[in-house]
C-alpha cells in the first residue's frame, strides 16, 4: 500500500478547480464530483481511509495508480495524491494545477467585478430614469408643462405653468 502525500492548496472555488483539472487533461468525463465526500480506492480496489469531494478514479490516472482526490476543507481543497502517483502527479503537477486554478480564479473575479459594475450602472440608470419620470408625471398632473434639457450629465427639468 502506498502512503498518500497530502498537500494543502488554497483552492476554494470548485468550478475553478474543475476548469484547472480540465486544462491538465482531466475533463468532466474523467472527474467525479460529490456533494458529500466519498472514500478513495487503492489500485487493487481497496477502500482507503481518505475521502474526497472531487475524485479522479485510478483507471483514469494510470496503470497501478490509486485514486486522486480533492477534499473540500475550510481552507480550500486539499489534494490527495498517493506516493505511488507522486512522480506523475506530485508537487510539479500540483504547482501546474495551482497556476491554472489561479488563472481561472482571476478571470472569474474580473468577470464578477465587471458584472457588479454593470449591475450598479443599470441600477443608477434605473433610479435616474424613475426620478425623471416621477417629476414629469407629477408636474403634468399638477398642470405644469415640462421642458427638459441636459447640462453635462445632469438633467434639467423646467416646470412652466401659468401665463401672466
Amino acid at each position: 500500500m502506498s502512503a498518500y502525500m497530502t498537500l494543502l492548496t488554497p483552492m476554494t472555488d470548485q468550478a475553478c478547480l474543475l476548469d484547472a483539472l480540465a486544462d491538465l487533461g482531466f475533463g468532466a468525463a474523467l472527474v467525479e464530483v460529490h456533494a458529500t465526500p466519498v472514500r478513495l480506492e487503492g489500485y487493487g480496489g481497496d477502500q482507503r481511509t481518505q475521502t474526497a469531494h472531487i475524485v479522479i478514479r485510478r483507471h483514469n490516472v494510470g496503470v497501478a495508480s490509486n485514486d486522486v482526490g480533492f477534499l473540500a476543507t475550510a481552507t480550500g481543497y486539499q489534494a490527495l495524491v498517493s506516493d505511488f502517483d507522486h512522480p506523475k502527479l506530485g508537487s510539479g503537477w500540483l504547482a501546474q494545477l495551482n497556476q491554472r486554478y489561479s488563472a481561472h480564479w482571476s478571470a472569474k473575479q474580473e468577470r464578477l467585478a465587471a458584472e457588479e459594475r454593470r449591475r450598479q450602472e443599470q441600477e443608477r440608470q434605473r433610479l435616474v430614469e424613475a426620478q425623471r419620470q416621477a417629476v414629469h408625471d407629477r408636474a403634468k398632473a399638477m398642470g405644469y408643462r415640462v421642458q427638459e434639457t441636459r447640462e453635462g450629465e445632469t438633467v434639467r427639468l423646467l416646470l412652466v405653468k401659468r401665463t401672466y
Partner: protein
Amino acid sequence: MLLNLARTLARSAANGPGERFVVWVQGCPLACPGCWNPDTWAFGRRELHSVQDLAAIILATPGLEGVTFTGGEPFAQARALAALAAPVRAAGLSVFVFTGYDLSELTLPAHRALLELADVVVAGRYRQAERTLDLPWRGSGNQRVHFLSNRYGPEQLAGLPEVEFHLSTDGSLAVTGFPTAALLGRTTAG
C-alpha cells in the same frame, strides 16, 4: 474683496429672466418666518469666494443672460456684490436681485451702488400670511418687482419657468425657483 456665500448654481432658468448664474449669499438679518432658505440666515463663514474669482467664473460660463443675487440677504453684502455686478454688467449680462428690504430702506452708499447696477429688484419681506402662487418671482403678495433699467419690463414676467429640478447622475434631485409645497412634497417624495 470677499463674498460669503451659501451656494451657487451655474445655470438656472427659474431665478429671473433667461439663463442665469445664481448666487445665494450667506447671512440675513431679517429672518422672515416661513423663509425657504433658513440655512442662509447665519452670518458665520460658509463659502468664501473672492469677487474677482467669481466674476471670472461667471464670465467664463457660456450662454448666460445674467446673474441673480439671492440668499440670504444680498444687501447685507452690497459692497462686494456691487463689485461683482460691475464687470458682469460691463460684459453685457443683466443683474437681478431678490431682497427682503423695501427699496425705501436701501439708503446706504453701498446699497445705492448695487441698486445702480441692478436691472430688476424683487423687494420686500416674505410674509407667510400673504404667501402667493400667482405672482411671478414673488413669494408673498406684498413684494414688488422693480424694473430699474430699460432692459426688462412687465412683459418679461409671462411664461417663465417657476420651478427647476436638477437631476444628478446619482438620482438625487435639487430644486430651485418657486415650487408649490404640494409639488415639492409630491415630487421629492417619489
